[in-house]
Structure formats: C-alpha cells, structure tokens
C-alpha cells in the first residue's frame, strides 16, 4: 500500500512535534536542574502548584521543586501505589490525602525523581497555603524531615466571592515583611523588584496564549480536550516555567497547532491518534486519576466524548475571567493570583463557574470526578452537581477515583457509570428529537 503525504499534513506533524517536543525538553531540563542542584550548588525551594510564586522564586535564583508534580509523575509511572503504602507503613492513615503520602513514600524510598535521579533536599519550603489545609500538614511533615527554613504564606479564602482590600493587604504584608526577607536570607540573593516585573511580563504573555488555547474548545468540534489534553497544556505554566521564555515559546507553538486543527475542522489528538467524531461535549470538575490516566481517557474518547472545559485546569490560576499577572503592581498581582486559584474560590463561585462553562461551551452536561484524597475539591461536589443541573437543565454524572492511589481506581465501576451516562444523554437526545418532531 502506498502512503501519500500531503504537504499540509507534514506541516501539522512538524508543528505537533514542536509543542510536544518543547515540553518534553523543558521537563527533562527541569528535572536535570533539580538533580544537579547538589553539584551546582543551586538552592532549591519546594512549593505548591496553587499559589506557586515561580516568578518570585526565580528572583532568588532558586530552583522550583513541586512535590505535587512529583506525585503526579509517580502516579503516571505507576509507582505511587508503592509510595502510598510506604507512607502507610510509616504510620500514615489510610484515610488521608494520597498526594501527601505519595510524596512522603517517595522520600522514604530514596527520593528518586522521574528521570531516575535523586531529587535534592529543599533548602527552603515555601508553604503557600492556598485553598487546601492539607498543604499545611504536608509541609510540616517535610519540615520534620528536612529541618529547613519554612516560609508560610497564607492566602485568605474567598468565602464571599470577593477579594477584599484586607486580604490583599494581608498578603502583600506577608510578602514584604516575611516571605521576601526570608528568601533573601536563604538564597543570599538581594530582591530586585524590576527583575520580578520582567518575569511577570513574560507570564502575562504566555497566559494570553493559554487562555486562547483553552477557549478554543468553544469550536465544534473542539480542537482540544480541555481535561485530559488540558493537563499537558497547563504543565509549564503551573509548574516551574511561568515567567520564562520557554513557556512563551511553548504556548506559541501550541496555539499555532490548535489554530491548524480548527482550520482543518479536526478534533483533539488522543493517545490513539486524532479523535474520530465528537459525540458528547462535557465539562469536568475535579482532578483526574493519574495511575490509570490512559485507560481513563480512553473510556472517553472511545465513546466520542470530549471535555470542553474543566476546573482542574484552573488549579494553578484562573485566567479566563481576565486575570493576568500585572508587572505594574508586582506584589499585589502575586497576591491576587494566589487568591484567584480555583481551590481558593468559594463553593458558590465554583458553581457559577461550572454552570457558565456548560452554557458557554455548549456542553451536554457536567461530569464530576470525585477524588477520594482531596477534601478541598470533593467536599460539596454533590451540591455543585445538583445546582449546575438545576441551572443548566443538563444532566450531570458522578464518578469516584483517586489522584494517585491505584486502589481507588475501579475501571469496571467507572466505565459502568460513564456508559450509563452517555447512553442516557443519547436516549434523551432521541427523546428530545422525537418531541420536536411530534
């Protein structure tokens, strides 16, 4: 059989490679930088994705280590199960967040990173307490282990749906009087606010492209999967790359690819190639399962289901309502960034957001993936489901898995619910069509 390759397809492939390749390189470089820290003498700061102050960390030449990302990597490489067990052996309860346990277990088993090299011990823990109480315990546990300086940055909760001056003032005060002086001390680098401004400018540029990419899902068919695919897309910006040129390049490439797919009327790219036909459009709330990520995703694309918007892609910052890092108000903008991350938003705000997504992205309904580990996400999701259903008139579905604990992923169970849900949507459509015809 002869295969003909049209010029356009070549361009597409090349471009596709461009963003993927770029990301792979970035990640590899990052983990090398971490692993090299021991020899290069670079100092390492551990911090969290929500409230990740990468721009600030870079101002002190610190390498940003994100335990959450490590846990995700362990999950994807199917090691988290053993790590979690290890932590449980060390006396941790079966009930608590497995992200923490995966991280603790990984350290207990030699702290080997995804590149097979040992991760460095942090020189400073930047405990950004943003939308999750577990963070506090997590870093208390790390502090117990590493006995290093721990800087606490509290983000007040957006309980009433607004950012009050008291909140911003509190955060700026913490940054000025506590966080920055301590970072200076640990790193030995003097804080330079213009350097911060420079990074923030770069952040905003990449953020523009990210928003464009995520919102491209408004197209029909959607050129992206805003959950499974989205997880790859948010990696750089929520990780150690926000504020870098690398991030700018990555999102530019990605944007071009998305544009190409829109122009060609193509759907998202899945691990099994481009998606054939978009049958269902979904909004998803909640983190994914990482231990069986591929299998999980497959249950969607096999049925023709595309996720057009998700809340998880907002855990490290919510940009689609207009927030961009603002170099002219450097500390305030950092505060507002932290305040605005998804998990720091009140439940009514989350409901508003998801209901708006269902409408805006013309979805068939809301799917909630409830994560056993994560109270921050999960407590209250059943009310979210009810309210979004009520407001949009679209049916919602509820499944339960875990982020990185393979014991909580029951493929048969999840598949059963998903299939039932899709069949229900299908049947309803049939019914509706009938109703119109009659």
């Amino acid at each position, binding site marked *: 059989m002869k295969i003909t390759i049209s010029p356009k397809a070549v361009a597409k492939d090349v471009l596709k490679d461009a963003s993927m390749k770029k990301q792979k390189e970035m990640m590899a470089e990052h983990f090398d930088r971490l692993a090299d820290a021991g020899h290069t003498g670079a100092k390492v700061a551990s911090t969290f994705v929500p409230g990740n102050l990468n721009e600030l960390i870079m101002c002190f030449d610190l390498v940003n280590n994100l335990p959450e990302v490590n846990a995700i990597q362990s999950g994807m490489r199917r090691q988290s199960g053993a790590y979690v067990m290890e932590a449980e052996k060390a006396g941790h309860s079966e009930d608590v967040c497995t992200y923490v346990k995966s991280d603790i277990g990984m350290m207990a088993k030699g702290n080997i990173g995804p590149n097979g090299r040992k991760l460095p011990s942090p020189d400073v823990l930047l405990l950004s307490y943003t939308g999750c109480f577990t963070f506090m315990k997590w870093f208390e546990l790390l502090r117990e282990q590493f006995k290093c300086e721990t800087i606490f940055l509290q983000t007040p909760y957006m309980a009433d749906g607004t950012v009050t001056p008291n909140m911003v003032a509190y955060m700026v005060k913490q940054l000025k009087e506590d966080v920055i002086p301590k970072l200076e001390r640990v790193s030995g680098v003097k804080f330079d606010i213009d350097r911060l401004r420079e990074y923030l400018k770069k952040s905003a540029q990449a953020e523009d492209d990210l928003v464009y990419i995520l919102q491209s899902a408004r197209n029909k068919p959607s050129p992206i999967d805003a959950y499974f695919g989205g997880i790859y897309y948010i990696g750089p910006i929520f990780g150690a790359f926000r504020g870098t040129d690398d991030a700018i390049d990555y999102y530019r490439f990605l944007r071009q690819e998305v544009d190409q797919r829109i122009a060609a009327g193509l759907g998202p790219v899945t691990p099994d190639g481009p998606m054939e036909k978009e049958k269902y459009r979904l909004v998803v709330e909640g983190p994914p399962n990482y231990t069986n990520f591929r299998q999980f995703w497959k249950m969607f694309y096999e049925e023709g289901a595309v996720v057009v918007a998700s809340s998880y892609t907002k855990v490290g910052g919510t940009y689609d309502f207009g927030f961009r890092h603002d170099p002219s108000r450097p500390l305030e903008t950092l505060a507002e960034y932290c305040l605005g991350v998804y998990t720091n938003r009140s439940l009514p705000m989350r409901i508003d957001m998801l209901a708006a997504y269902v409408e805006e992205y013309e979805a068939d309904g809301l799917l909630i993936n409830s994560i056993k580990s994560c109270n921050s996400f999960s407590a209250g999701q059943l009310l979210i489901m009810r309210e979004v259903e009520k407001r949009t008139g679209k049916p919602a579905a*509820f499944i339960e898995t875990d982020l990185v604990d393979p014991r*909580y992923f029951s493929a048969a169970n999840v598949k059963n619910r998903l299939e039932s849900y899709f*069949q229900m949507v*299908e049947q309803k459509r049939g019914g509706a069509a009938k109703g119109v015809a009659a």
Partner: protein
Amino acid sequence: MKTFVGIDLGSTTTKAVLLDEERKILGRGITNSRSNYDTACRVAGQEAAIDARFTLFRREFGDDGEAGRQVEEFLARLERAFRLEQFLEQLGDLQQTCMEQVTGARFARVADGVRQAIGEVFAQLRAEAPALFAPGATRKSDFFRDIAGSRYLTIAESVAREAALPYDLLLNVYDKSIIAVENRPPSDNLSDKFDAALKRVTAENANTDREMQAAVEKALAIELEETFLVGTGYGRVTLPFSKEHIRSEILCHGLGAHMMYPNTRTVLDIGGQDTKGIQVDAQGIVENFQMNDRCAAGCGRYLVYIADEMNMGLHELGPLAMKSAKPARINSTCTVFAGAELRDRLALGEKREDILAGLHRAIILRAISIISRAGGIDDEFTFTGGVAKNEAAVRELKKLVAENYGEVTINIDPDSIYTGALGGAEFARRAAEGRLEGLDP
C-alpha cells in the same frame, strides 16, 4: 412464535424476561448468579421459558369464571409437580457429585462412613421433598442452592453426630459439590419433566380432565423462537453477548419501571451490590440517576450475609423484622461487619426482631439518601429490585417516603425483581424492529 429476551445478570441473581410481539410478558425466570455467567444466563432463560409455557397453557384455556379457577388449580398443581421433579433431579445430581468427592487422603479412613452418611442425608432430603412442594408450603428461597443447602446443613449435623463423623467433612463435601452442580448447564429435556409432572398430577387426581391434558400438550408444542436478546446488569461487561446486545442497567430499570407503571417518575432499585435512584420522564427515558459509591454498605447482599448469619432464608427475614415493636438503631451498614454487629447486639441481649428491623431501616435510610442525591421523589414512585420483595424493607420505605416527600403513589410489584430484565426485553423488541439501538422510543 417470536419472543424477545431480556437478561439481567445481577451480582446475586440473574433474571430473564420473555416478551411477545404485543409487548406482553410471556415468562419470567430467575436463578442465582454464579461464577459461570453462561450457565446463569442459560438457567434464567430456561426458567423463563418454563414460565412461558404456563402462560401459554393459560392462554390456551382462557380463564374466566368457575372453569378458570379449576384451571388455575390444575396449573398450580402441575407447576408444583414440575418443580418437585426439577428439585429431585438436581438432588440426584448433587448426591452423585457429593459421593464423587469422597476420595483422597482426607477421607482415607472414613470414606465408607462418610458415604453412608451422605446417603442417609440425601435419603432424608428426598423424603421431605414432597412436603416442600405441597400446596401452601413456603420455601426459604427460590433457589436450589438455598433450599437444599440449608436443609443439608441441618440434617448433616445430626447425621454426623450420630455417625461420630466430623461435621466439617460433610460440610466440605457439600461446599465443593454445590458449585459443580450449579455450574452444570441444566438438562434441556423439559418435556420429559413436564410429562413426569403431568403423570404425578394425574396420579394424584384420577379425574383430571382429558381436555386439560390435551390443551397442555398443545401449548407444549408451540415453538418459542428467540428473536432478539438484550443483556444488562452488573455483569454486563462480562456478559457473554456482543455489544449491540447490551444496554446499561440504568436504562433498563428506567424503561422496565415505566412499562409496569407508565406514570412512574422516580425509580429506586436495590440490588445485591448497588442501589440506584433513577428519574424517568413520561416516555421512560432516564433523566438522572445516582448510585451508591464504591462502598457496598447497605445493599441487598447485606441481607444475604445477615440471613446466613442467622441461618434463615431470605424470605424469612422480612416477616421476623415485622414483629418488632422497637427497632434497634443501627448505624453501620458495612456488609462485611454485618455479622459482627449482629452478634455484638445479640450478646447485649437485644432481640433478634428488633435488630433485624433496625437493619432494614438502615438499608432503607441509605437508599433514601441515594434518591435524595438523584433529586428526590416525584409522583409516582416505583421500588424495584430483589429487596422490594421484603415486606419489612417496604414498610420502612413507605414510612420514610411519607416523612420526607409526603403523599406519593408507591408502586411495588411482586415481580419487581424482573424490572431490569423487562426493560432489556423491550430494548430487544425495539432493536428487532430495527429502531436505532433500541434507544429510540
């Protein structure tokens, strides 16, 4: 004639429904689910075919007036006789299988004694069999496993004591054999058994109408063609059917409930391993559903564990619980710990019926929560699944529905355990008519 088959392979029971072209139910069949899905489906299907025969008999006779009552009586007798034949056949199989187990080192010294004991146990079992199927007799369960099993255990205990043999040995022989017997596909020669049953009936009642016999023979001659089959239920992923023959159990339960009660808007199904709350519209289309999460607490299996623990039949739990005036408050419905909780409470001197009543309430409480999750109850409300057979559960349900949702019509059909299979059969009928995946109403 054309028939459409729905099979609901549940976690504890497998149900089959046969529908004719007029959407009328021809027959229902049920068996316990087991490791061999094929067999479970075959048995359920066969049971439904047997039931269909009785429907056909009835159709053959017409059923009005005095004559109708006579016919009913005759058919009831025929059915009891048929069931007895079936039971005896399986008993024979079980005995033979048990005997074959008596080999190897474990039995080296006692083989003869054990064989003798088994013989004795089965002799007693056979002797009491006709009483089990006498008019008005109630059985612990519909399944051979349960009926034969519980009697076997009781009889074996005394036989073992008398023969000074370890009870465990007889237990073990049974445990091993019952599985083998269960997983053996049933013999297909139904007409033989019908013949034998007819003979039995005629022998008992010499004056059986010749006409009746003729009608029966005529109905037996009708060919039942399996036109299309749809499977559903917990095991549907592993069902021995291809994808176009499979529907989600949610849709099947919704549709089945709609067929039985067209005004149904809310359906509660409590099965062996899951509890579902389903909302349907006026066409039986599912609007919303919720299921219990991964914890199987409070599902039907819970009652099975309890029945086991109390050495009672499933059918007996409800009536005993109904006797309670003061239900205990039970908070944990973890299925696995059910037995432990029960013992705990018995040890504290609580009454069996009170504990049982409390357990039933606990199950229903959980179910009501799931309904609440699925958006509450709208008129009319239909309760399906195996647990709907249990009067104590039904009583609690009615109470709680009234407390929480006021006056609503509650439908409970004695055959509600077949709801999913019924929906499946209708999907089969639609699919055979060439409608899109049968989803099209």
